[in-house]
């Protein structure tokens, strides 16, 4: 397993009294930022994270949009703050980006002046995708191919989707001035060439920087533990881990799937602190799984590379890909990813 590089965190802090309990944010970044700035070697206190809870915020999310975000594979990026981005200019951005995308796609081809391009770009806000009211509003960008048919019933086809969000990004927000909008987590679905075009426009227009967000084995383990800890009414998917073995000359992949009820039983047996997940518990959970495996196969999974974890809540791949399956824990999953994105930016 890769060396521990998780941030420290302070125990849960109480936010202001008007917020309901489930908006309590642990702020692991505060302490780490300070210590990094002071350039002192920081003592590793056992990191803790709050078990994701079913967020009441779900009610404000448009169910149609929510369904759109689930069950899709998203490629993850971290994004530095956007300079002079304004939510009131979304229509203007749509227009500018449409023209930019069309121009990029037409590069190298002879084009009639004034020709009507058959793609359009739409910006729209995603209400309710945030952790605290202070988080910047999430928004969605889509490349659509305009329907060729005159009939109104024919819907435009979605070619590419990307969305920007910030969940519990308080500590990060505090470090930037008001000209900046903080949406450190970017998720994209569609062809890489489209992602590159959109990314280029954003980087030029808002002086920001995208960077692929890989997820290392350490964080994958945390995700597996946290998502196994989530209460589920029923399980849609098995709990599965994928390891890649660095042996040569032939590659070897090991897929280890556990019945979700059994994984939960194992977790419940490991879990001691109500409402929180600790490093010790994550380590013990993974250790039990690995030792059960070792008992049968005499192979040390810890000497191999954890590449993917999959649960009924979500699945994540080390290359920085996520698929969220359970609407109840959407915010919880995004919160962790926001943490990782912020960590990468700093």
């Amino acid at each position, binding site marked *: 397993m890769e060396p521990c590089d998780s941030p420290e965190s302070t125990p849960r802090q109480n936010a202001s009294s008007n917020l309901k309990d489930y908006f309590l944010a642990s702020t692991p970044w505060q302490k780490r930022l300070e210590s990094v700035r002071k350039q002192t070697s920081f003592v590793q206190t056992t990191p803790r994270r709050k078990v994701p809870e079913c967020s009441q915020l779900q009610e404000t999310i448009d169910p149609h949009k929510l369904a759109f975000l689930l069950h899709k594979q998203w490629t993850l990026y971290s994004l530095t703050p956007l300079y002079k981005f304004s939510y009131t200019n979304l229509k203007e951005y749509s227009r500018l980006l449409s023209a930019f995308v069309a121009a990029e796609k037409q590069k190298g081809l002879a084009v009639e002046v004034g020709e009507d391009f058959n793609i359009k770009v739409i910006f729209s806000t995603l209400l309710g995708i945030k952790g605290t009211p202070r988080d910047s509003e999430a928004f969605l960008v889509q490349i659509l191919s305009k329907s060729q048919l005159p009939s109104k019933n024919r819907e435009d086809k979605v070619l590419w989707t990307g969305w920007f969000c910030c969940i519990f990004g308080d500590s990060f927000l505090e470090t930037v001035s008001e000209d900046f909008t903080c949406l450190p987590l970017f998720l994209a679905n569609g062809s890489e060439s489209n992602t590159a075009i959109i990314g280029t426009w954003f980087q030029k227009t808002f002086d920001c920087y995208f960077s692929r967000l890989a997820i290392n084995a350490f964080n994958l383990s945390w995700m597996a533990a946290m998502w196994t800890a989530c209460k589920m009414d029923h399980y849609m998917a098995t709990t599965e881990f994928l390891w890649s073995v*660095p042996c040569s000359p032939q590659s070897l992949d090991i897929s280890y799937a556990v019945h979700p009820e*059994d994984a939960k039983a194992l977790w419940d*047996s490991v879990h001691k602190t109500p409402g929180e997940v600790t490093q010790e518990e994550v380590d013990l959970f993974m250790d039990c799984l690995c*030792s059960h495996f070792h008992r*049968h*196969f*005499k*192979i040390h999974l810890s000497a191999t590379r954890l590449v993917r974890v999959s649960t009924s809540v979500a699945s994540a791949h080390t290359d920085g890909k996520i698929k969220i399956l359970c609407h109840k824990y959407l915010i919880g999953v995004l919160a962790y990813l926001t943490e990782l994105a912020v960590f990468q930016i700093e």
Partner: protein
Amino acid sequence: MEETVAEFLRRTILKIPMYEMMTILKAWDFFPEEQLQTVNFRQRKEQLAVDLVLLCEKKSASLNDVALLDIIYTQAHRNHKVWDVFQMSEEPDDDVNLFDMEQFKSSFKKTLQRALRNVTVSFRNAEENAVWIRVAWGTQCSKPNQYKPTYVVYYPQTPYAFASLSTLKSTVPLLGQALKIASNHHQIMKMDLRSRHLDSLKAIVFKQYNQVFENHNSTKPLQERNLGQNRNVDPRLIHENTVEKERIQRITEETFGDYPQPQLEFAQYKLETKFKSDINRGILAEREEPLRCLVKFSSPHLLEALKSLAPAGIADAPLSPLLTCIPSKRKNYFKIRDK
């Protein structure tokens, strides 16, 4: 030549890579050598196919001729298919019948035709007395689909047959039935063994994989291989490391043998065993139910990869018998329960 047959022929020819075209056509032996020389093999494949189809039409190629070409192509590309293994058992108290190939073929075909009026059954004898069978499946009212055939490789005088099953799953029981009846066996069952590598499956099933090759020379002592690498390390440590490495090497060779491993792509284990741990005794201590797990190992060459694990320090030596028994038990699907 019927249009459907001509089309089937054209598509089969298009499957064949250009570098193999001459070899396969020669093996097909439908055209005499002199006629093949007159064909222009330098043109584009689509055009070549058109020319060949025309020639076949002149010679009134039949559906069975084209099916034969399909068999030859598949034999040359056997690793494109996934093969299952069937094992049949003898009738109890049955005398060993002298195997009659023609009788087998006729009985096999008849069994299928009685059940489904529309089937195309073709045979081609192969090396080691094996027979390759191709079956294209239709129904009582529709013609056979030539593009989703089943292939069977049967070794007479053994109770084994290898089958690349069509995606039409409903055909499997009927196929089993036909094989069983035609070969005078009492029962047929599918083994828990599956791979793309037909020759490796054969080697495993017939226990031919452990033949030692005379030129195989991997047992050079480790000291020779590590010359000059450890100059600054305590020689006693080097010695201990070397002793351990040699132990691992020796055990690995004892387990896997000194020969190339048969090639499999995966092994799958369905586990229903209780959680037990020496270190973490409290965990799940009261739970009676086992953990239900499904473990799958995948690799382009699974057994070679497993063989390299202990020397690489990723696994203990000796490796678990669950893994090392794959060739000897002739299985790559397992169900493991507590005793």
